[in-house]
């Protein structure tokens, strides 16, 4: 099967968009409709102007054919994003809590449902700023890379996907180096010249010596 390099290194963005479309979102339907049974659950019934919760793909589909209006999710309000941005900007702060598919959901809503959002330009700008701050934080996380574990909470799916090739290959390399270091360590512990090499290594590399 023909597969591109990008596909071997993780998800592609359209794939992530597809996965994100399963998230639920509130809409205001414009037409009446009875309950429909689908494989993964039921949609409806639609009784305008009552709000209903549907999967995102249904919402996008209805919106494109002008059969509903989308209610912006709570986290996508301008003030909330601005507060999150302020909190994110503080040095040494962890990543702020955002839905795991926030980039994809935001992109789809901004593309298809811009009229349902208040201050869409401001939201666009804030999302861009937020993304840049988070990116610089992941770069700092790279510094703390070791071969055993790296924990970064509250990263969204798209961001994880972005750093997956880099971090994945780096982990592999560091693990190989560690395996090599351990192999030579046990070898030397069984030989006569252990002390001298350890002393040499300590001199050359100071406290970076891994125990």
């Amino acid at each position: 099967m023909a597969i591109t390099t990008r596909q071997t290194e993780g998800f592609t963005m359209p794939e992530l968009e597809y996965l994100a479309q399963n998230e639920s979102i509130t809409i205001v339907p414009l037409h009446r409709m009875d309950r429909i049974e689908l494989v993964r659950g039921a949609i409806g019934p639609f009784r305008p102007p009552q709000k209903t919760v549907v999967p995102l793909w249904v919402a996008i589909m209805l919106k494109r054919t002008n059969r509903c209006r989308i209610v912006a999710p709570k986290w996508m309000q301008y003030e909330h994003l601005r507060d999150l941005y302020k909190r994110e900007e503080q040095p040494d702060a962890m990543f702020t809590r955002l839905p795991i598919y926030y980039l994809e959901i935001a992109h789809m809503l901004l593309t298809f449902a811009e009229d349902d959002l208040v201050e869409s330009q401001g939201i666009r700008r804030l999302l861009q700023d937020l993304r840049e701050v988070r990116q610089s934080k992941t770069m700092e996380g790279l510094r703390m890379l070791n071969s055993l574990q790296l924990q970064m909470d509250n990263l969204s799916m798209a961001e994880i996907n972005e750093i997956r090739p880099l971090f994945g290959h780096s982990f592999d390399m560091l693990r190989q180096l560690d395996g090599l270091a351990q192999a030579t360590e046990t070898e030397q512990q069984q030989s006569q010249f252990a002390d001298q090499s350890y002393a040499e290594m300590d001199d050359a590399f100071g406290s970076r010596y891994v125990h």
Partner: protein
Amino acid sequence: MARRNYYDIDDILAGQERVPCVLRADLDGLGSAGSGGASKVHRNARWALPYWMADRLNEEDYVDMEVSPVFSKRANRMYAASPESMQLRAICQHYYQFGLQLGDMVPEIPHVLRNMYVQRVIKVARIAQQGQNVEALDFVQSLDKTETRMLKLCQQAQSAISDWHKNQAYALKRAAVVSAAGS
């Protein structure tokens, strides 16, 4: 023995790096293979052989393999001092792979490589994020194969997201055959 991928082309190429060796036995008729023209090569002659060959001959005791100058003590000290300004492409194009293969012989190699890798990969990631500019050009030209691959992957990941943001992640176009047949 370091992990070796038999079919990995980078591994094969990395093993091609020459290491200095001292011959232990007199070899007849192989003079033309070395740097001389004589037909007989004496013991204690110095020869630079590719690593894969030298390793096997070392085990069979035909040669005494010595550490390649890429990872000599002096070189290791230089690497520890300033990892970011080393010209890895000039020193050895498959620096990391070669280091992994030599790992049995030189016990400081894991430290050296780890130090180099972590520092340089951070710089690589930063360059990928901010786009290449003039100062970065020198650094990019000094990367070895592993690092250039990493740079390309990072750049691809970046452009994937920004393309998708502009709704250019993929384009559905009419096939030329269809439009030619239609007209």
